Every structure is written in C-alpha cells, then in structure tokens.
C-alpha cells in the first residue's frame, strides 16, 4: 500500500473536531431557533447532549479532552468581554447597584449553603458549592444579549452584576482552597500561599496584559482591525501565560478585561467587537458543555440539584428585588433582572475543576453536587435570559 495514503483507522485531528463541532452546533442552534424560537445556545447544548455520553456517545471523553484548547480560549474570551463590561465608575455613581450585588451574592451563598447542609452535604462541600453558585454564567448572559442585540438597563445591569458575582465567586472559591488544603493535611505554606498566589498572580497577570494592550494600542493608533488582532493576541497569550504559571485563567482574563475598561483613562483602546471571532469558540464551548452532561446525574443528584437551584434563585431574587428599585429604574426592571441572573454553565464546572485539580476525589464529589444544578440551568438559563431581555423590550429583534 502506498505510504502517502492515510493509515487506517483514521484518527480525528483536533482541528477536524473543531470544525465538526462548529457545524453540528450551528445546525442545532439554527434548528432550535427556528422551530422552538429559543436562544441558539440551547441548540448548541442539545446538540452536545445528543452527541455526548447521554446520547449517541460520538463525542466521548477522549474527544472532549482533545477540545480543551478551544474551551480555554472560549472561556478566556467570554471573561475578557465580561470584564470590559464592568464599569467601576457606574458603581460609584449608583451605590445601590453595588449594594444589590453584595446582597445577592451573600444571600445566594448563604441560602445554597443552608439548603445543602439541610440535605446532609458536608460543610466543606456545601461551602465550596455555594461559592460556585454565586456566579451567573457570563457566557450565557453575554451570548444571549449579543444574539438579541439587547441594550438597556436590564441588559447592562445584568452584565455588571454577572461580572461582580463572577469575581466574588472566583475570589471566594480560591480562598476556600485554604480550607481544602487544610482538610487534606497539606502544609501551612500550601494552605496560605496557594490561594494568595492564585489570586494576586492572576490579577497581576491581568493588569500586565491590560498595560500591554494600552501601550500597544497607542502604538497602533485608532485602527479597529489592528487593535482587534492585537487584543485577540493578548487574550490568547494571557491564557497561555496563566496556564504556564499555574494561575487561574478565569480570574486573569476577567481582570484583564476589567483593567482594560477602567484603567485606560486616555481612551487609547478602541471598543473593538470580538463577537465575530468569539462566536465560533462559544459554539464549541456549549456543544462540548452539553456533551459533558450526563442525564443520569440528574436522576442521581436530582433532589440536591433542585434544592441548589431553588435556594440560589431565591437568594438572588431577594437581593435584586429589594435593592434594585432604589437605583431609580423603571418598575419591573428588578424582577426581570433576577430572572436574567439565573444561568449557570460551563464556568461553574471550570471552577470545580480549577478548585480541585490537586485533589481529584474532592473534585469528583463536589461535581456530583454542582453538576445536576448545572444540568438544569444550562437549559433553563438561556431561556430565562432571553425571556427577561425580550420582556424588558431591550432586544432589537423585537422590532416590528
């Protein structure tokens, strides 16, 4: 047989996989959008479910592992974009927005903790799971908002609250590492220094990246295309650097975005839109996210999952509904806002993963608690966000 021909069996190339996932996701997204009028994200996730372990099992664990690089870039881009949506000036001008965030973070944390311990989950697991539950899925909120071309107070407030609760969740989950280390009898250096290194290192990396972006943009001038490429370059570079330095990719990229928005006082950075390139990574992110979900988990952890989701929603709802009206927004905004904060997704799983790489068995058990909630909210979340933004009249596709 000629040696230039491919040898059987054929091994799928990662790039081939990326292309296939993209096409399958887009097809699924379009189908769901047209037939059910639901957000495309739901279609991506359902495509993943169909291809994944719970469905045809075409996208099995080894293949999912192959796709890590795309997922990392996708999450990095999402967090960078989200960071750029966090306006610190706004928090100074509307203190009630900051207060709303603090209250909804605290209440969702406390209520999830209470609900889980009531169901006999050990305190350490309940605490870490509750910390993860503080965060709203940035990818879902951002993507549904972009898909609907939504803008307005509900959209902007939801994005800012999501950025804030993601920060709170990261910081808390990272600090809780100390407890986990302690529980596993790690040395005191590990207990203290690991969280400190993760937090400060990731934030410093984000700052350095933003300083690089601002300096670079001064050099490039106001050219959207060049600044676009420069930003993508820095996002990917920061993801790589964070991995290389054993830092948190999530926190580093979120800080990168926040610094870009709030440190660039001379406005050298242009507001370039990364959606076009982000979109293709996001499709893969959600298809793979769907493939990872096991419907059997829902049966196993169904009760915990329901309790988790309910407690989290009540916590966020009370926080948002009591304080948002004090920001002076229109009646109705608060209710829609707490619906828009519902989603949980791959980010939560990434946090589980990040928190627990050192202790796989801890991670495995934690995952069983969180994953059924994620399973429920992966599907419900995008629909909730779409409902909230449309009902608020902020979706551009609403146009007659």
């Amino acid at each position, binding site marked *: 047989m000629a040696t230039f021909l491919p040898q059987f069996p054929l091994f799928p190339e990662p790039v081939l996989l990326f292309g296939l996932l993209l096409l399958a996701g887009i097809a699924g997204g379009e189908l769901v959008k047209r037939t059910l009028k639901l957000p495309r994200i739901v279609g991506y996730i359902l495509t993943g479910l169909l291809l994944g372990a719970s469905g045809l099992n075409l996208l099995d664990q080894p293949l999912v592992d192959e796709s890590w690089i795309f997922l990392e870039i996708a999450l990095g881009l999402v967090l960078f974009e989200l960071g*750029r*949506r966090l*306006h610190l*000036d*706004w928090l*100074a*001008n*509307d203190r009630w927005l900051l207060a709303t965030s603090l209250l909804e973070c605290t209440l969702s944390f406390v209520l999830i903790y209470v609900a889980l311990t009531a169901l006999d989950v050990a305190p350490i697991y309940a605490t870490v799971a509750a910390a993860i539950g503080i965060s709203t899925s940035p990818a879902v909120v951002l993507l549904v908002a972009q898909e609907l071309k939504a*803008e*307005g*107070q509900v959209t*902007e407030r939801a994005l800012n609250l999501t950025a804030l609760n993601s920060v709170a969740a990261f910081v808390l989950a990272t600090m809780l590492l100390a407890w986990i280390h302690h529980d596993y009898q790690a040395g005191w250096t590990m207990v203290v220094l690991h969280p400190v290194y993760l937090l400060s290192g990731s934030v410093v990396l984000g700052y350095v990246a933003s300083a690089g972006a601002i300096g670079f943009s001064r050099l490039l*001038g*106001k050219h959207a295309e060049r600044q676009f490429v420069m930003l993508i370059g820095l996002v990917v570079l920061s993801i790589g650097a964070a991995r290389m330095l054993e830092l948190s990719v999530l926190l580093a990229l979120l800080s990168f975005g926040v610094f870009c928005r709030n440190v660039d006082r001379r*406005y050298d950075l*242009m*507001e370039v839109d990364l959606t076009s390139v982000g979109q293709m990574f996001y499709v893969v992110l959600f298809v793979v996210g769907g493939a990872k979900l096991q419907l059997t988990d829902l049966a196993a952890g169904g009760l915990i999952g329901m309790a988790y989701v309910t407690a989290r929603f009540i916590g966020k709802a009370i926080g948002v509904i009591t304080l948002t009206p004090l*920001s*002076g*927004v*229109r009646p109705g*905004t608060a209710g829609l806002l707490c619906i828009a904060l519902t989603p949980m997704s791959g980010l939560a799983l990434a946090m589980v993963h990040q928190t627990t790489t050192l202790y796989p068995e801890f991670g495995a058990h934690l995952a069983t608690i969180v994953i059924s909630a994620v399973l429920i909210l992966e599907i419900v979340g995008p629909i909730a966000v779409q409902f909230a933004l449309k009902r608020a009249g*902020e979706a*551009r596709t609403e*146009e007659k």
Partner: protein
Amino acid sequence: MTAPEMQFTPSKDLSFGVELELQILNSRDFDLARDAADLIGLLDKTPHPGAVKPEITESMVELNTSIHREHDALVAELKVIRDAVAQAARRLNLHIAGGGSHAFHQWAQRRIYPTERFEHLLEMYGYLAKQFTIFGQHVHIGCPDGDSAVYLTHILSRYVPHFIALSASSPFQQGEDTSYQSSRLNTVTAFPLSGQIPFVHSWSDFLGYFDKMRSYGIVESMKDFYWDIRPKPEYGTVEIRVFDTPLTVERAAALAAYAQTLARHILVDRPLAPERDVYTLYNYNRFQACRYGIDGKLVDAYTRRTLSLREDLLDTVKLLGPHSAVLGNGAVLARLAADVEAGRTDAAWLRQAYKERKSLNDVARMQSEEWMGKAGAPS
C-alpha cells in the same frame, strides 16, 4: 371654525424659552443608547425646574426651560436642569451630549419611542422617522398678538442663515464627515411639510391657510408643520427651529439671547417690510449657511447684494447694540461676536476633536464631557 388652540395667546415683554433635543449615549462605545424611558422615569422622581420629555426615538430626550425674560436667569435654569439630567444619566451609566447629530450612529438601529404620536409618524414617514434622530434647539419668542407673530416670522426668515451658522454642530453623520457645518437640516428638508410659512400678512390670513390645509386632511395641528420658523399660537410665541443643539447649555442660552435681541429690534423698530424675495433666495442662503457656516455667503433680498455671512452677522450684532443694552444681553452678544470673528464654532470644535483623536467614538465621548461637565460625578 377655528380650533381653540389656534387662538393666539398674547405674550409680553419678549419673553423667551428654550427647548433642547439631546443625545443619550452608552458608556461603552458612546454610540446612541436606548434608555430614554428610564432616564425620563428617573428624572420624574427628581425635583428639577423645567421639563424633560421623550422625542421621536429612544435615543433622544428633550429638555424645556420655563419662560424667561433675561438671559442670566435662562442660563442659570439651564445649568440646574443640565446638572439634574447629567446626574440621573450617571446613575444609569449613560452619557448626555449636545451637538446637532450623532457622529456615527446608524439610523436603521434606532427605535421609535412608544407613544401613539411617534408610532403614527413612523407609519407615515417610514425611514425618515428614524433618520429624524437629529438634535435641534428651538427658541420661543413671545409675541403680543398673531399679526406681530406673522410679521416677526417673515423678517426672522431673512436671518435664518445667522441662526444656522451660529449653532452649526452636525458635521458628522453615519460615521462620515459630511463637509457641511450643519448636516442636520438636510434631514429636515426631506419632510413634505418642512419649509417656510406661506407669504401671508395677518393672523386671520394665516388661519385661513391653516384651515384650508386642515380641511384637505393634510395637517391636524401646528405640530404637523416642520417649518424652520413657525408661530405657536397656544404659547403665544414664534418658534425658531433651525438651530443645531449646541455643545453646551451656555451656548444655547447665548443663541436664545441673540434671537431675543433680534426680535426686539424687529418688533420695536419695524425696520423692514415682509419681502417675497426673502423666500425666493431662502433655500440658497440656507444651503450656504449649512454648507459653509459663518464662511458662507448671503444674498440679501432687500439690498440685492451678496454679503459675507460673517460680516453680516457682525454688523447685525452692532446694529442690535441699543436693544441688547435694554435686554441686558450686551456681554453675551459681544462674546458671540468674538467667537464669530475668531471662527470658533461647535462644528469646528468637533472636527478638531476628530483630528486629534482620529476616532468618532472619542468625538462623541468628548462631546458628552463638554455637555455634562463635572455635574453629578463622584467626588
């Protein structure tokens, strides 16, 4: 049978008031936002003088002053309203800007403010309704009676190029430099009921014209005429509508003071008789002012000479001397004249901002910083 709102309510002592249409910008890329309803809702809960109202698209808001007699009181009130609007905007993470046009928004993305009237306008005018997302200043001048209002309207028509050149602040549209100083008025011209008052000489003749137009079913009220200058009988005023919204409220008050002083000259001195040729030359003179601003030409219907608009403006300010003294507008008009001499206009400021920053997003941001000042910023 003439409708009651067409009865001319007399106004005294050259009272005047200002309406400003303003841009609502987002804080991300300084494109137009869509938050008019939230902004107005928040301002309804905040005590402030004047009024803040919706305009045709959700990216606009209109600010009205009360009725004034003196420039100083007008500018003081405008500053208080500005600060209230700026503070409310900051709480909603919005920016407010003056200027006759937004530099780079895309009209197709605009959404009509949901009221019956605005939705009717969208239905009737189609895309023009969305393109109408342009920002003007209206100045109301009080008149003692309808006949004076008709007379004032005719004579002010000769000075329309002045108003345009002084206020021009819409050099950019849809992301491009239009080469005009005021590109905004080109958008107004597209409307079928834009233009000027018919050449009538008394209020009763005007009512005859109005009733005829209404009997044809073309108009329902004075609001349906998008004229450059129109009588507003229910307020007892003549409303000048050709000004672009200036970049600051101080400039807006100065323009109103110029109009007030000119109106005093016209109503007290009765210097000219209405002249049909003013309207023959009207569109050409208006174009010159829009295109070239104070560097344009003006063909004077009364002397039949071609003048430099800048010279004519400076001569007029001199001519108005005694009247500005009586009204207390001397200092304001002197500053306006100095700006004209030095070529300082808002359109020039905007082009300079673009030259320095090479980004229209930055122009829009600087425009909003110019309008809002430090009002309501956290200390």
